């Protein structure tokens, strides 16, 4: 369709928007009503002075009549005022008369949407970050205890000296606990802010990339791309060290996927559940591969309740990809009670324990449900054994969150790491906690 043909239609639309009759507009620009009628029905071409006169009289830019308004801008503007239908009807008029302002509105709307998404993401994080949730609970519970105790102490009602001493002691210990929990939270938030922009190690970088696809690489599953092809899209912005680790990780993922393809694993998982031993028996695939494959199931199948953590023979954590609710230290050593480390002492012996995982050992999770996990662990030598060479080992711990804690009796309570764990009578404690034992309290009360 000719560009010129549409000019008449635009003139007609603008005239109607201004509430002018055909004869009135014709009179204002010095032409006959019948000629304007022919123009508006695209039966006469116009340009030059007449086009300029019409644009001036209709109070629009000449280019609007000749070129029209970009359809995309009108659509964006309508979207921007979608909650105000009355204004949406006039989007074209605004875009036509004030195209630059229209673009400002559209870009502001896009910015608002982006900021809203960030707020939602941060809010979601506060709700689901186990450390924040537990810390908040710790702080509010301590505040409650202090408030109740202080109210009792200031109550004019008689209280014997023993009770008064007891409540005074409680008040003191709770105030110390509150100060410690507050400091720990502030410290965590500070380090967390920094880590939004930089990962602590190449493994952290790689883990973030793996988590960005939910631990599941569809292109490797289907064979559409090899490790290099997947790395180009998923690992394009990581450091060279993380990329090197990633290529090794993706190569093993591909081999694991060939050994136990999804079309075999998914029906089995749906039939027998997250049962590594049964899946290993039925497929003849080794347990380490079964554990890794279960961890790579898509979240829409597992409900996001499955994760995996690995470490090398020194106990250094390699991949930290836990399910929601299982806290893992960002830096430093983890809780030595994790079966992951016990497995290093018994290579090739599969271990199964139910873990009560929380900052308060065995406590409840961020959503209030019991924080129990089935931990399936095995330690295996890496690579082919070589004569007269001590193999290096890697342990894998598959974690499956239990949605129901009923019927569980033998629970191994673990924490994320000593500094984040308030349990006082733990034989495995290697350093003081910042939560319950007092961040700055000195065992010898030195000033």
């Amino acid at each position: 369709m000719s560009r010129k043909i549409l000019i008449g239609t635009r003139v007609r639309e603008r005239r109607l928007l201004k509430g002018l009759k055909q004869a009135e507009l014709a009179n204002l620009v010095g032409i006959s009503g019948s000629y304007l009628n022919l123009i508006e029905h695209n039966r006469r071409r116009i340009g030059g002075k007449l086009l300029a006169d019409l644009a001036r009289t209709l109070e629009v830019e000449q280019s609007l009549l000749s070129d029209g308004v970009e359809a995309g801008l009108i659509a964006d503007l309508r979207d921007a005022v979608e909650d105000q239908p009355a204004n949406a009807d006039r989007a074209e008029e605004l875009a036509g008369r004030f195209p630059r302002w229209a673009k400002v509105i559209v870009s502001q709307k896009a910015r608002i949407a982006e900021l809203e998404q960030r707020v939602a993401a941060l809010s979601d994080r506060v709700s689901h970050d186990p450390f924040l949730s537990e810390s908040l609970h710790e702080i509010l519970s301590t505040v409650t205890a202090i408030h109740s105790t202080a109210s009792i102490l200031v109550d004019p009602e008689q209280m014997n000296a023993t009770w008064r001493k007891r409540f005074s002691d409680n008040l003191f210990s709770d105030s110390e606990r509150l100060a410690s929990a507050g400091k720990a939270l502030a410290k965590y938030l500070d380090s967390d802010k920094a880590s939004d922009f930089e990962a602590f190690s190449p493994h952290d970088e790689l883990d973030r990339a793996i988590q960005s696809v939910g631990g599941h690489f569809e292109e490797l599953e289907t064979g559409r791309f090899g490790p290099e092809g997947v790395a180009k899209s998923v690992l394009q912005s990581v450091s060279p060290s993380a990329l090197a680790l990633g290529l090794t990780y993706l190569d093993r993922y591909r081999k694991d996927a060939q050994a136990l393809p999804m079309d075999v694993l998914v029906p089995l998982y749906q039939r027998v559940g997250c049962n590594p031993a049964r899946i290993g028996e039925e497929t003849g695939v080794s347990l380490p591969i079964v554990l890794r494959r279960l961890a790579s199931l898509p979240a829409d199948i597992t409900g996001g309740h499955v994760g995996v953590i690995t470490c090398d023979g020194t106990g250094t954590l390699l991949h930290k990809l836990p399910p929601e609710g299982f806290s893992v230290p960002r830096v430093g050593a983890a809780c030595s009670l994790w079966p992951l480390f016990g497995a290093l002492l018994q290579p090739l012996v599969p271990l199964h324990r139910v873990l009560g995982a929380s900052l308060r050992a065995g406590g409840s999770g961020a959503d209030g449900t019991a924080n129990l996990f089935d931990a399936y662990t095995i330690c295996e030598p890496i690579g082919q054994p070589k004569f007269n060479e001590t193999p290096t080992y890697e342990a894998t711990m598959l974690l499956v969150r239990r949605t129901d804690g009923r019927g569980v009796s033998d629970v191994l309570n673990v924490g994320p790491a000593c500094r984040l764990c308030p349990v006082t009578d733990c034989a495995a404690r290697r350093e003081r906690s910042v939560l319950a034992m007092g961040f700055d309290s000195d065992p010898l009360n030195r000033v």
Partner: protein
Amino acid sequence: MTKHILLIEDEPNIIEAITFILLRKGIKVDAHSNGASALETVKSTNPDAVILDVMLPNRSGFDILQDIREDTDFAEIPVMMLTARGQTKDRERAMELGATAYMTKPFSNSDVIEAITALLEGA
């Protein structure tokens, strides 16, 4: 007749404070601080009402509330939930599971006394 409350809460100093203020009001308090065997304690103490924390070791307060409501002997017992989080979804979940009342930490002693009195009057 002396009224009797079971307090299921894992903060020892909260237990001590609530026990003290309710005792002053002539209400007997039993305390239980672990989620694992809470229902058994409800059965053995047979209280007039239960104060139940949401976040407990080994078992969440929501699961315990569900157990209580599924037990025909205690399906109607008044239960007030305590939590450190006042999120709407938690309140809704507690009420859906059959909580009688809901109190968010931090609360004052007078809040507790008022709520427990109302709970016992309705029992």
